[in-house]
């Protein structure tokens, strides 16, 4: 009898322990109410406030701007998160040949297979947001909000929001796949370093290029002039890439701008069908 009750007790204890383990691992970090000191400490951080859009620093010539964006050996290939935005603002491309991500044979084959389908468009034509890393390279502005324990990026394109937790919480070991992944950040001097893991298979590493569930993105945000921010983005994916893929983007602060809404479904007349055929609806 004693043995039996001990057995039940052990079972109960084990069950409770298992529940507790599950709860701890599945539950997000518990946020605390910020202290006055933590609010005061915000004033010492670099001023990321305001609305930013990809562009070239005022007065900087195109070539210099592109060289400045290229950041040495960093590949700036087609599909680089920085490419389109910089190209849009500058109306030009970097001088060197586009390098792009260096893919493993398996992922090079996947890209070739996807490209060979000849799709005229992708699901963004149907208003599906691109997710990471593409969402950070849209030709629309974004706003940085700094609060104790968190950096929030309000992205105008598709009306999206990223949450980068700077309260010391760890990255999840087994994250649910998400369009933006799950991000934590820390300040290294005046640079915000964000690490992101756990991406939805519906997002792509670059055009026609899937990623594995091991993709990890490191972003380094820093002010390089009063209204100029440099964002260095490194994509690691041991299954898809033979080397980390780094690109750099310049954001310009527009003090006279506010973020607007972008409800893609409001009046979207473009579409792409399952076969990849693009179309436009004049009647709606």
């Amino acid at each position, binding site marked *: 009898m004693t043995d039996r009750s001990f057995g039940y007790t052990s079972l109960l204890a084990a069950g409770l322990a298992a529940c507790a383990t599950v709860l701890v691992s599945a539950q997000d970090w518990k946020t605390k109410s910020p202290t006055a000191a933590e609010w005061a400490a915000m004033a010492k951080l670099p001023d990321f406030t305001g609305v930013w859009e990809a562009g070239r620093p005022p007065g900087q010539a195109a070539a210099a701007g592109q060289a400045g964006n290229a950041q040495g050996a960093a590949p700036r290939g*087609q*599909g*680089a*998160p*920085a*490419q*389109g*935005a910089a*190209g*849009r603002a500058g*109306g*030009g*491309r970097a001088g060197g040949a586009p390098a792009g991500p260096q893919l493993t044979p398996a992922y090079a084959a996947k890209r070739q297979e996807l490209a060979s389908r000849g799709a*005229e*468009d*992708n699901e*963004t*034509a149907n*208003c599906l947001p*691109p*997710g990471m*890393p*593409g969402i950070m*390279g*849209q*030709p*629309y502005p974004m706003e940085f909000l700094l609060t104790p324990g968190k950096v929030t990026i309000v992205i*105008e*394109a*598709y009306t999206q929001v990223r949450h980068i937790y700077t309260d010391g919480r760890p990255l999840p070991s087994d994250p649910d796949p998400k369009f933006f992944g799950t991000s934590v950040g820390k300040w290294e001097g005046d640079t915000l370093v964000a690490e992101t893991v756990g991406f939805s298979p519906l*997002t*792509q590493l*670059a*055009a026609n290029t899937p990623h594995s569930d091991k993709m990890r993105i490191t972003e380094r945000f820093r002010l390089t002039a009063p209204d100029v921010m440099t964002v260095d983005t490194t994509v690691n994916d041991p299954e898809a890439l033979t080397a980390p893929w780094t690109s750099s983007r310049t954001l310009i602060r*527009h003090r006279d*701008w506010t973020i*607007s*809404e*972008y*409800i*893609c479904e*409001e*009046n*979207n*007349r*473009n579409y*792409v069908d399952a076969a990849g055929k*693009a*179309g*436009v609806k*004049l009647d709606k």
Partner: protein
Amino acid sequence: MVRRFSRLATAVAVAAFLSGNAAPVSVSAHHSFAVFDLTTQKSIDGTVKQVDWTNPHVWIWVDVPKADGGSETYGFEGMSPNFLARRGWSRTTLQTGMKVTVQYRPLKDGKPGGMLVSAKLPTGLLLTGGGAQQ
């Protein structure tokens, strides 16, 4: 001079569209330009029937007189209102009843409409993907 400026504005607008489209996953203003014949530019004169100041793109509907009488409504897709509003083109810049000359990349399927390259008002105001310029 005006013509040169017009071409420049057009080039900037198209470059804005195209370079955006070249980047990752979709950096375009949300879609590709596969439905438009980018090798062709057409021009028509008409009267603004309606302006959809909406995301993800503004749509300008223009009534164009037909040779045999009556008119046909063309639809032109522009940039997003967010993008344009920051560049001098507001919700009320183009209004119903205004006469416009529209330069556009036609729809490949031959339907009446296309990608707006520019809309020019009798006042000389030129509206492009890059905004409004006098």
